């Protein structure tokens, strides 16, 4: 195999002109980060609600929450993405579907990927939140009741604040996963990192440089996220609990 390495390719101009391939990569990085962060917000919000509902002493609510988790965990992410992107606009009320289809393609791709990734990850976050709440001693619940709290108050003031701190370490890995999973958005054409890697291969015929650069960027995202979450873990840990100081 003789391959012509050419790292200078990143600085050469793109066919559309005006920018370099390096700028393409950073555009991809921006979309990956934006997509992942916005999906993470949805995942946290929905995940906490579903996780709490799974532990509520009310048959209907907990069944509903369990159904949510099972559905979102047992359908492949790629299939879910295609369902949001191709199927959902057809099933929505016609006016909404049309509005979606008439918006800018990038908006469509981003919205579909964000909702998909957010709700998919929410199911995983919910499982961690449920485990966190269930790991709390029963006495916490009893103490809340003894103080005359209503059910929502027990959750609001006693259980959730504790669980939120306990689940930080397991959520770190979910947070890392969301960045990796965001690469799936390449299949519907969103120009995130993986897409840009493929574009670079198509335009420059320098596949190794392109893939190595993108792989390094993913590794960099990992390192940054781990560093930030480590610091958050140190600040939020609860002494006496798993992962907390002794």
């Amino acid at each position, binding site marked *: *195999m003789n391959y012509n390495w050419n790292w200078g390719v990143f600085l050469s101009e793109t066919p559309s002109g005006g920018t370099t391939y390096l700028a393409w990569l950073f555009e991809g990085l921006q979309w990956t980060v934006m997509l992942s962060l916005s999906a993470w917000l949805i995942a946290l919000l929905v995940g906490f609600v579903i996780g709490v509902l799974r532990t509520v002493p009310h048959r209907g609510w907990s069944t509903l929450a369990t159904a949510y988790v*099972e*559905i979102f*965990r*047992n*359908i*492949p*992410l*790629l*299939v*879910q993405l*295609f*369902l949001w992107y*191709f*199927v959902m606009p*057809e*099933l929505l009320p*016609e006016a909404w579907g049309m509005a979606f289809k008439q918006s800018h393609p990038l908006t469509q791709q981003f919205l579909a990927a964000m909702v998909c990734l957010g709700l998919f990850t929410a199911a995983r976050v919910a499982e961690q939140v449920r485990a966190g709440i269930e790991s709390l001693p029963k006495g916490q619940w009893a103490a809340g009741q003894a103080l005359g709290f209503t059910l929502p108050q027990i959750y609001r003031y006693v259980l959730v604040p504790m669980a939120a701190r306990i689940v930080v370490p397991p959520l770190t890995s979910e947070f*890392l996963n969301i*960045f*990796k*999973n*965001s*690469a*799936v958005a*390449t*299949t519907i054409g969103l120009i995130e990192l*993986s897409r840009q*890697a*493929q574009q670079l*291969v198509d335009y420059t015929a320098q*596949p*190794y440089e392109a*893939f190595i650069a*993108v*792989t390094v960027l*993913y*590794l960099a995202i*990992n390192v940054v996220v781990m560093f930030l979450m480590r610091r958050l873990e140190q600040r939020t840990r609860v002494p006496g609990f798993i992962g907390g100081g002794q």
Partner: protein
Amino acid sequence: MYEFDWSSIPGALPLLAKGLMVTFEVTLTAIVVGIVWGTLLAVARLSSNKLVSFAAASYVNLFRSVPLVMVILWFYLIVPQLLRSVFGDALGDIRLASALIAFSLFEAAYYSEIIRAGIQSVARGQIAAGLALGMTYAQTMRLVVLPQAFRNMTPLLLTQAVILFQDTSLVYVIGLSDFFGTAYKVGDRDGRLVELLLFAGAIYFIISFAASQLVKRLESRYAR
């Protein structure tokens, strides 16, 4: 309101079944190779030889920090060139071969983490006991530690297998006709993408849900 028309599915069932077989082929290969290679990686990572354990840790961390989509694309870039330099141009579908290799090597990284935790869950005294009986380290691992470790981690390995089964749909990025790829192509061809995607989702759900319920049952049996 959208009008459903499911009529293109019955005729496409043989094609879809063929796609499902490809999905299972990739899944099973990745499970078997992934567990074997993952076990070696786990043992290497726990080795007292610094260099060996560093190499294994680097492998695992590298694969675990890169998206599966990128790994599949990477191998689709490398494998055909390697295979061609070995076998010449007389090769069948390179996509399947590169998908099999990509999934096996990728899953090995995840399996090795599960297996490492399984090995570490076996009491330290067991290794000492094996060594005291005059077994070599390799014998102790193979005859004493690993059998107990695998018993402990069976549920986790199976759960990972269900995740893997779902992840194989990502071979879509290299155009391999697995179950999902076939469903997409049929839907695209007949202009019935909505129905075919819903059908594919339902089938994936049924298989994964049934499998994970089985794993749960197994788990509670083991726990007793």
